[in-house]
């Protein structure tokens, strides 16, 4: 077959070159521009310091609050294995990573905003009590806890469920009380995951863009990401944008390095690996069955608290779209153009992310299996995670500086949005695909070689059936993330090129809440449909036989 005549390094080289060019060139451009800046005055600039301080403080607070909420709830959910809706709830927890943040912000405003559900309830109850103003630190923290507490809960719940039965049996035989069981059995498992989770959540909150753009943005509540965007799109202050981007880049680099240090050896799973949460009853002998009613009620209360945080905004998101403006929004030409752009960007970004991931992994596999160069293989895989150091707005700023003297950047908006989002989806694709590509690769390779199977036949009959579902999962997630992204489009969008997240942000910004509600519902529906179609069509309906 023709495929066999192609050298093994072609795909990986293509992918590595693409990623290095797309990440490295803008980064180098930023660094070279930054060299010319008066850093001595900049590091003393009170405004820049205030932005940096706020970025770090809100991320730290968000992390602490999210962990403080997630740890007890995960433990409670681990104890309460069987109640109606538990399955739906844990699935919802896994979704928070792919839920478009600007849509979630809309849900939060509908519930917690000044005219939101909670204030309406308080009003109806005749209370003069009011929810604090959402815009500013309170809203940012609320949104970050809303996003991250479920994510942490899910990872911890899986970890707690993995505690071997033998340990519980021993605890039952010794008749250990609940508190001792917690400190001896549950806490060590939680503690092992904490550094990795904390560093992940801190990074997510530190680089959070849509939430801060929609709920903060004033001089008191601006993060570096939003300040970069504002320096470019409102003030055209290129030196300031470069300075902010460099600060952001340095902090992210430091976070990645320390995160790698802390997070070594534990896989946070990101709550993406399908639904592997257990829902069956604990066995009869299990100590969790013998909890006092006091403990049981405590657990139920904790779970109810989490439900109260997570569920109402999602319900608001789904129901408030059905209002008087729905039809006019859905038939509006701006909305339809934005819908088309969103779908194109999502599918193109996902395809590119998938191609890059598969090319990189084929190289990793070859290095592992044939050349026994596992370490080189790991480096290759790490290249795909480059975007984690370079948040989309920073990458966008670099691309912008690189291109602006040569082409009209706004005419290339769609292409740039696709490239940035493909790179953003790449770490997820790599994470989901690396297991299926590499696990058992040595044995399969030996077998395929021993019967002299051609490469194409091997791909068609051995690799593809194994990879089909992970490929579907990876591309569905990459596509959904791209469809909901506001970062790249906020930088490059214009009257010629809008996507649904940008349109939703504009409509939220001008307080046209009915139109925003309809747009948010459309965005959610689009993400959901893209996700389901990819999972069904690419993944096929049957499980592979392996």
């Amino acid at each position: 077959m023709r495929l066999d005549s192609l050298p093994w390094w072609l795909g990986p080289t293509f992918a590595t070159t693409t990623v290095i060019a797309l990440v490295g060139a803008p980064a180098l451009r930023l660094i070279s521009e930054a060299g010319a800046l008066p850093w001595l005055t900049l590091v003393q600039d009170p405004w820049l310091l205030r932005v940096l301080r706020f970025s770090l403080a809100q991320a730290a607070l968000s992390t602490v609050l999210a962990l403080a909420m997630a740890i007890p709830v995960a433990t409670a959910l681990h104890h309460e294995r069987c109640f109606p809706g538990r399955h739906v709830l844990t699935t919802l927890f896994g979704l928070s990573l792919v839920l478009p943040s600007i849509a979630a912000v809309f849900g939060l405003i509908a519930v917690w905003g000044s005219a939101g559900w909670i204030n309406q309830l308080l009003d109806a109850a005749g209370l003069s009590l009011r929810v604090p103003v959402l815009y500013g630190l309170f809203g940012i923290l609320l949104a970050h806890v809303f996003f991250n507490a479920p994510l942490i809960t899910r990872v911890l719940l899986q970890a707690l469920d993995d505690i071997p039965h033998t340990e519980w049996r021993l605890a039952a035989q010794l008749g250990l009380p609940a508190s001792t069981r917690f400190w001896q059995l549950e806490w060590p498992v939680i503690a092992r995951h904490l550094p990795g989770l904390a560093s992940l959540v801190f990074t997510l909150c530190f680089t959070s863009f849509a939430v801060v753009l929609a709920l903060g943005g004033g001089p008191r509540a601006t993060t570096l990401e939003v300040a970069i965007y504002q320096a470019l799109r409102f003030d055209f202050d290129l030196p300031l944008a470069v300075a902010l981007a460099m600060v952001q880049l340095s902090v992210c680099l430091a976070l990645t390095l320390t995160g790698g240090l802390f997070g070594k050896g534990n896989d946070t799973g990101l709550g993406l690996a399908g639904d592997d949460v257990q829902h069956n009853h604990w066995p009869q002998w299990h100590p969790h069955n013998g909890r006092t009613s006091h403990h049981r009620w405590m657990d139920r209360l904790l779970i109810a608290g989490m439900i109260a945080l997570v569920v109402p905004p999602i319900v608001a998101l789904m129901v408030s779209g059905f209002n008087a403006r729905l039809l006019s929004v859905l038939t509006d030409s701006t909305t339809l153009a934005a819908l088309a752009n969103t779908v194109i960007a999502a599918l193109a970004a996902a395809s590119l992310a998938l191609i890059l991931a598969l090319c990189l992994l084929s190289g990793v596999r070859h290095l592992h299996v044939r050349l026994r160069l596992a370490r080189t293989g790991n480096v290759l895989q790490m290249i795909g995670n480059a975007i984690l150091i370079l948040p989309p707005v920073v990458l966008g700023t670099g691309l912008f500086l690189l291109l602006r003297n040569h082409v009209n950047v706004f005419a290339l908006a769609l292409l740039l949005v696709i490239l940035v989002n493909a790179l953003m989806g790449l770490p997820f694709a790599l994470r989901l695909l690396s297991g299926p590509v590499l696990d058992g690769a040595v044995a399969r390779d030996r077998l395929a070689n021993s019967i002299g199977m051609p490469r194409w036949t091997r791909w068609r009959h051995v690799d593809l059936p194994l990879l089909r579902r992970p490929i579907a999962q990876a591309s569905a997630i990459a596509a959904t993330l791209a469809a909901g992204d506001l970062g790249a489009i906020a930088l490059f969008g214009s009257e010629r090129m809008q996507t649904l997240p940008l349109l939703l942000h504009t409509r939220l910004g001008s307080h046209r809440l009915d139109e925003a509600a309809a747009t948010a519902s459309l965005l959610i529906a689009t993400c959901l449909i893209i996700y389901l179609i990819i999972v069904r069509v690419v993944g096929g309906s049957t499980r592979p036989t392996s």
Partner: protein
Amino acid sequence: MTLLTRPLPLAASTLVLLATSVGAHAETRRLTIYTYESFVAEWGPGPAIEKAFEATCDDCDIEFVALDSSAGILNRVQLEGDSSDADVVLGLDTNLMAIAEDTGLLAPSGVDTSGLTLPIEWASDTFVPYDYGYFAFVYDTEKLDTPPASLAELVADPDGPKIILQDPRSSTPGLGFLLWMKYVFGDEAKERWADLQPRILATTKGWSEAYFSMFLNEEAPLVLSYSTSPAYHIEVDGTERYQAAAFEEGHYLQVEVAARLAASDEPELAAEFLAFLVSPQAQASIPLGNVMYPVADLGDALPDAFSRLIEPNETLLFDPAEVRDQRKAWVDEWLEASTR
């Protein structure tokens, strides 16, 4: 000779034909103009001006690009730099002139502005003023009997009827209102902005959204617009329902300007267009198209409604250089007061 020349006519005519068809493409001169939405709307002045201008020149084609806000025009050409498609920017105003001039992206207009009728002296040779007006709150008389009589009254009544504003970072009316507040309240402007917060229903990116999407849809009874806005409703809709509220402190002036870009590949056509823009022929589209005062004396052609508008008892205006130096600080003041 004869042998050689005989086939020539055919070849020559083919060549000529080819050359003219190629030449025709090269000769279609395209002028790209960045402006704001309402200028190019169906009922705005854009379509009529485009048609009239294209009739004056051979093979020229105007392409209006409508950006979502007026101050966004400046930001866009700055972001695009020398690779911008724009030949002309249309829709900046007096407040942004010094900032725009400092970018070095603009070229002298070559238009004689001495004969124009303006409420102020015109000194710039880069910017061509094409209309002017006074910022004012327009109110819906069916929703509101007595509008506030002054800026101070508006600000002092937090529970009063809701107002719709525009963002000073993206919209020239938004920036105009920010300056109006600063002009009237000076160092206290920040506190007055804080006082005003409860009354603000929405702050939109551009004027069109505020006026059409929200105010005319009855979402609030007051909107930041111009003293001239009622003229459109009187002349075109035949209704006196929408009126401008006269404020005791006086009204802030806006002169809207156009300029050509230094990097334009059609500099002459751009200059021709700018000259045409202030001609009586183009200016005739301004009063009811852009709903502003024209800069050319239209005589009887000025619609009657323009004589029935409020007259500001004082014209307020900052020096463009002062706006350039203070804008960031004043916008930050507004941001801080409005996100508190």
